[in-house]
């Protein structure tokens, strides 16, 4: 049986506002329990919510960035259920009239193609508090610092067909919200959380199969694994004659499997109704226009511009534009270093692997864009070869200074003096007279390989400093002659 996988994602992003969505409490992460829980956050009798304008602005920014309809008259609704981390016994969310309607996001697949993923809607809501189960025997401790933090819940259409596509989508959302500056995307701290809806159906079938929801998966790697194990579980279940039951599941990274969430099994009737303590939110066209004017250049536009302005391939452009910090870094390098392709290569390959090795993001790169740009200038003016540049790069990363001072202090200046190279080559060839004779006696094919030997010797003799281009040229001439 050929199976098709259908995946939809609900991503909760914590908006990077100073204060909470309905109260003036701080939103700082990691404070002592309940020190950022005001009367409103605690759901004390008699308190009332007042809406944070920045949350509205950030939601609109997101909506505009995904080309979505903006809910010009959007309404907050109460989602009623009992849980200790939900102080009022209801969550203020949005139901029928969300602030952001239908939009879309383009993702780059591994084979280089672009796929458009639909976004059904995005709405504002308040986050719940946290339950701590470990430290109290027989009891659970509740911390309401997080209660009331603004969330933008982004709901995708069930357009993804593999775990990899799902991850690409999450990464694209992650990059976009960071691009817009509306969310720090810190998944470890819970700033961005993902619920994955997974179902399978026989290839060709139009109706969707029964889906399961995997809640709160908090890293790209886990998202991929969770979805894959769930797909396999569903396939195995059906092929064994069973049926998929609609339920909520949790991913266990230690066992690499999903398991059913016991407490959520009973269907919850949330009894949504418009929150009578809040009035409908009206978004004026002038407000939207000012937001649109203030939007930064977004990934799709940047990718296109990089291809046009810098002559980069679509793939390279996508990689370099994948985060705002990386794109800015790259452009700074080009500004100073002057060669976009060279810059692209260095940023993606050398810098990329360095950052990987150190386990840091580009905003903590030990080599600044200015430094790298300066080094590229020295490659381009032949002061150093590309190979020597790697040494210089390593030294800069180790904090030994800028390219120029390193080249100077380590005496890495490339030898480009034709006369000096000439002399060195003559000496080298003289020392390898036998091989020269063999070369001259050999045919075209064999010569190719033997030439490399002479190049190597020349580099050795010059301690790598001879300009490779000139070595090649002169060597060829000498060997022919």
């Amino acid at each position, binding site marked *: 049986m050929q199976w098709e996988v259908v995946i939809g994602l609900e991503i909760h992003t914590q908006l990077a506002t*100073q204060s909470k969505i309905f109260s003036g409490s701080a939103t700082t992460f990691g404070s002592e329990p309940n020190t950022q829980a005001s009367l409103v956050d605690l759901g004390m009798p008699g308190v009332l919510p007042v809406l944070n304008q920045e949350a509205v602005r950030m939601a609109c920014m997101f909506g505009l960035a995904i080309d979505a309809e903006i809910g010009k008259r959007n309404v907050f609704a109460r989602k009623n259920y009992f849980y200790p981390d939900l102080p009022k016994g209801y969550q203020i969310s949005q139901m029928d009239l969300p602030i952001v309607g239908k939009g879309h996001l383009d993702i780059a697949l591994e084979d280089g193609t672009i796929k458009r993923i639909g976004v059904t809607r995005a709405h504002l809501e308040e986050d719940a508090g946290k339950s701590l189960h470990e430290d109290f025997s027989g009891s659970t401790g509740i911390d309401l610092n997080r209660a009331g933090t603004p969330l933008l819940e982004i709901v995708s259409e069930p357009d993804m067909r593999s775990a990899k596509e799902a991850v690409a989508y999450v990464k694209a959302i992650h990059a976009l919200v960071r691009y817009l500056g509306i969310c720090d995307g810190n998944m470890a701290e819970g700033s961005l959380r993902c619920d994955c809806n997974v179902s399978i159906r026989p290839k060709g079938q139009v109706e969707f199969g029964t889906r399961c929801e995997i809640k709160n998966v908090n890293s790209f790697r886990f998202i991929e694994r969770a979805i894959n194990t769930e797909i396999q579980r569903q396939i195995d279940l059906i092929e064994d004659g069973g049926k998929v039951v609609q339920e909520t599941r949790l991913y266990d990274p230690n066992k690499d499997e999903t398991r059913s969430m016991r407490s959520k099994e009973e269907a919850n009737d949330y009894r949504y109704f418009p929150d009578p303590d809040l009035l409908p939110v009206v978004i004026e066209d002038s407000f939207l226009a000012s937001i649109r004017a203030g939007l930064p250049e977004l990934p799709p536009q940047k990718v296109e511009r990089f291809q046009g302005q810098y002559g980069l391939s679509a793939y390279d452009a996508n990689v370099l534009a994948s985060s705002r910090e990386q794109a800015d870094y790259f452009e700074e390098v080009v500004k100073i270093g002057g060669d976009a392709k060279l810059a692209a290569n260095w940023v993606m390959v050398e810098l990329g692997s360095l950052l990987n090795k150190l386990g840091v993001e580009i905003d903590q790169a030990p080599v600044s864009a200015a430094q790298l740009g300066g080094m590229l200038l020295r490659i381009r003016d032949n002061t150093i070869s590309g190979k020597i540049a790697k040494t210089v790069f390593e030294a800069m990363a180790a904090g030994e200074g800028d390219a120029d001072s390193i080249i100077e202090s380590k005496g890495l200046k490339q030898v480009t003096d034709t006369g000096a190279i000439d002399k060195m080559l003559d000496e080298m060839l003289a020392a390898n007279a036998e091989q020269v004779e063999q070369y001259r006696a050999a045919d075209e094919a064999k010569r190719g390989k033997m030439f490399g030997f002479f190049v190597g010797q020349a580099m050795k003799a010059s301690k790598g400093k001879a300009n490779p281009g000139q070595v090649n040229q002169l060597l060829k001439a000498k060997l022919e002659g």
Partner: protein
Amino acid sequence: MALERCDVEKIAHLARLGLNDGELPRITDALNSILGLVDQMQAVDTTGIEPLAHPLEASQRLRPDQVTESNQRDTYQAIAPSTENGLYLVPKVIE
């Protein structure tokens, strides 16, 4: 739309109201009496009428994004039934 005992039990559970078995018949009667009153609404033709959620048709005011609250944990927890190390305690929740 008469409620049966099992309906009342479901509603009480949704609302987390603990009812004694003994109270159920009386409550069921009372609820049915109220719903009988409420069902009179069905006689009204409301086709095309927009529901009115707020009496005055105003729109939501927005407040500036500023931190205006400070830590008042001691004051607020002084009236709490059960706390420890600054956390509110409830019977253990298993997820």
